[in-house]
Each structure stands twice: as structure tokens, then as C-alpha cells.
């Protein structure tokens, strides 16, 4: 395991150095913004990595919820609720109220179908994981639950670090280009809300000592993750000050810029995965220590009980 870790760490270090060279030296200077546009090469990959980590947290939290009997029973209701919301979307798609956003290329019919599919997917995932876990037994044991929980908390923490990078580098880019550090634009505000949701998730994990903390925090994570697609699609749904996408349908990018961007995307994704991996190992070590402390306390209690019962035995003799 250590050799594999060292191997990936070496590749990641190489990619980060090459990415740095590409971002600051090799990529051409943008015509309108100048050199400050180079922030793009680590601002966007950081946001991407944060999203991936939050989605990891989301899936681990969702699977953690399958260990709760009540949630398993609610899976059908989640699917029905999603289908109702989706059908409502289909009904209003013909006569859209003015307060609902309408962007070019956006279809309420498509969005409603996506909502239905997401709800059904969630219900199937929860049910399927439970049924599979029931069949395979050991694979979905308490140990699997501990690992899922460790990955969930680790990905949230590392995701918050990457999201912090996004929230710090964004204003450094905005000040010379927009003339302001911050604006309450939909993309910026939802990103700040996302950061706050995961900070509250970590605070909940840190300061709560109930036995149900894994289930409670998983519920918060699943609901909080709803903000991730909202942040991502906000620039399509709303008129924002934040730039529109420069790749795909939204625009085009110089091939040398695209190369620098993709290298940095890969480098930051690998770096995020490496840090998350280390954090999972740390979390498991922490739990191992807690178990060792608990065992020692039990041994101490047993020894004390044995010592206390000794004079009683003698006196009875």
C-alpha cells in the first residue's frame, strides 16, 4: 500500500510541476485580461476537485444511510416524492410562471425527467446496496460502514480546503477584471453557501458525540449536496456576472490554453485524491486509537473489579 501511495505521489508531484510550467510559462497570454487570466488554470481545477470530493462525500453518505432501517423504509417514499416533483415540472412546462428561470437551451421537460430519474436512482441505490449487502454479508459489514464514514468525512474536509482555494483565488481574479472583490452573484453566492454547508458538516462531526452522528451527518451531507449541481448549472440558469463556460457549447479555448488547463485539471484531481487518501488513513488511525483506548479502559475496569472482589471472597471464607 505504501509503495502504491509513493508511486501515485511521485506522478502527482510531476503533474503539478508540469502544470505549473504550463500555467505560468507555456500557455499564451489572454488578449483582453492579460496575465491575470492565468488564475483560471488553478481556480477552475480547484473548483472541479472540490465538486468531485463533495460528490464522493455524497455517495458515501448515501450508502451510510442504508444502514438506517428508517431510511431504507423511506427509499420508496423518496422515489414517489421525486416522481411527483418531476410530474409537477412536466405539468408547468407548458405554462411556465414568470418567476421560474428560463435560459437558452434549457427545457423544463428535460429537467423534470432528470428529477424523476435522480429520485428513482437514489431509491434503487439505497435498496440495491442494502439487498446486495444482505446477500454478501461480510462485504457490507460494520468495517465497511466505518470505511464509508471515514471516506465521507475525509472527502468533505479536503473538499472544503479546495473550495477555500476557489473562494480566495476568485476575488484575486475579480478585483482587476471586474473592479470589485466580491459581488452577490448567483454563482459566487451558491459557492459560498456550499462552503458553509460543508463547514457546518465538519463542525457537526467535530463537536457532536452522539452514537448516531454518522447517520445525522450523512443526512446533512445528502441534503447539502443538492447545492453542488445548483452551483454548477447556475451560469446556465441565471444571468450572472461570472463568465460563461469556455469549453463545449459555451465557447472555445486556444489549443495551448486547453492543454495547460487539462494538465492542471488532471494534476489537481490527482492531488485531491492523494490528500483525501492520506486523510482517510489518518481517520482510520484515529478510530484505531479510540478502540485501543476503549479496550484499555475495559481492561482497567475488569482489573479493578477483580481487585475489589478479592477481600470480599476472603472475608466470606
Amino acid at each position, binding site marked *: 500500500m505504501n509503495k502504491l501511495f509513493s508511486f501515485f505521489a511521485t506522478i502527482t508531484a510531476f503533474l503539478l510541476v508540469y502544470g*505549473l510550467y504550463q*500555467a*505560468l510559462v507555456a500557455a499564451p497570454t489572454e488578449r483582453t485580461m*492579460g*496575465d*491575470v*487570466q*492565468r*488564475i483560471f488554470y*488553478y*481556480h477552475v481545477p*480547484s473548483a472541479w476537485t472540490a465538486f468531485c470530493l463533495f460528490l464522493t462525500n455524497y455517495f458515501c453518505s448515501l450508502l451510510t444511510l442504508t444502514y438506517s432501517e428508517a431510511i431504507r423504509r423511506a427509499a420508496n417514499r423518496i422515489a414517489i416524492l421525486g416522481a411527483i416533483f418531476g410530474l409537477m415540472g412536466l405539468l408547468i412546462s407548458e405554462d411556465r410562471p414568470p418567476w421560474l428561470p428560463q435560459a437558452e437551451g434549457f427545457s423544463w421537460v428535460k429537467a423534470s425527467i432528470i428529477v424523476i430519474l435522480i429520485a428513482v436512482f437514489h431509491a434503487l441505490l439505497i435498496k440495491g446496496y442494502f439487498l446486495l449487502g444482505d446477500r454478501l454479508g461480510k462485504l457490507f459489514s460494520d468495517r465497511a460502514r466505518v470505511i464509508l464514514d471515514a471516506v465521507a468525512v475525509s472527502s468533505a474536509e*479536503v473538499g472544503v*480546503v479546495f473550495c*477555500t*482555494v476557489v473562494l*480566495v*483565488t476568485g476575488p*484575486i*481574479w475579480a*478585483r*482587476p477584471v471586474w*473592479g470589485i472583490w466580491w459581488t452577490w452573484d448567483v454563482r459566487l453566492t451558491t459557492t459560498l453557501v456550499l462552503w458553509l454547508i460543508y463547514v457546518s458538516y465538519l463542525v457537526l462531526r467535530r463537536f457532536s458525540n452522539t452514537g448516531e452522528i454518522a447517520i445525522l451527518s450523512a443526512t446533512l451531507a445528502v441534503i447539502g449536496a443538492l447545492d453542488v449541481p445548483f452551483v454548477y448549472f447556475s451560469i446556465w440558469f441565471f444571468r450572472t456576472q461570472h463568465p460563461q463556460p469556455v469549453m463545449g457549447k459555451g465557447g472555445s479555448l486556444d489549443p495551448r490554453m486547453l492543454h495547460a488547463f487539462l494538465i492542471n485539471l488532471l494534476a489537481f484531481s490527482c*492531488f485531491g485524491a492523494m*490528500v483525501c487518501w*492520506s*486523510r482517510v488513513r*489518518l481517520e482510520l*488511525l*484515529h478510530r*484505531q*486509537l479510540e478502540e*485501543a*483506548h476503549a479496550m*484499555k479502559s475495559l481492561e482497567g475496569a475488569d482489573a479493578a473489579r477483580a481487585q475489589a472482589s478479592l477481600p470480599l471472597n476472603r472475608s466470606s471464607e
Partner: protein
Amino acid sequence: MNVQNFLLHYGHYVAYGATWLIHILYLGILVRRFARLRQELTELGGDK
């Protein structure tokens, strides 16, 4: 040189520095936590 001009010319270095400052601080916290846990585990094992 005001802030706007400074960031227009050197903003990408400032942002890059800020990015790695945040990551290095976090990695430092992880390393410290790891060392403390290792030490606690060793002490717990040594007491037996």
C-alpha cells in the same frame, strides 16, 4: 501602483501563492495530527 494594477500584472502569482499556502497549511495540520496519533498509539502499546 494601486491594488488593481498590481493584481493585473502579478495577480496570477499572488493567487498561485495563496493556493499553495492553503494546501501547505492543511498538509502541515495533517502531518501534525498523524505524528500525534502515531505517538499516542506507540505509548498505548508500550504501556502494556
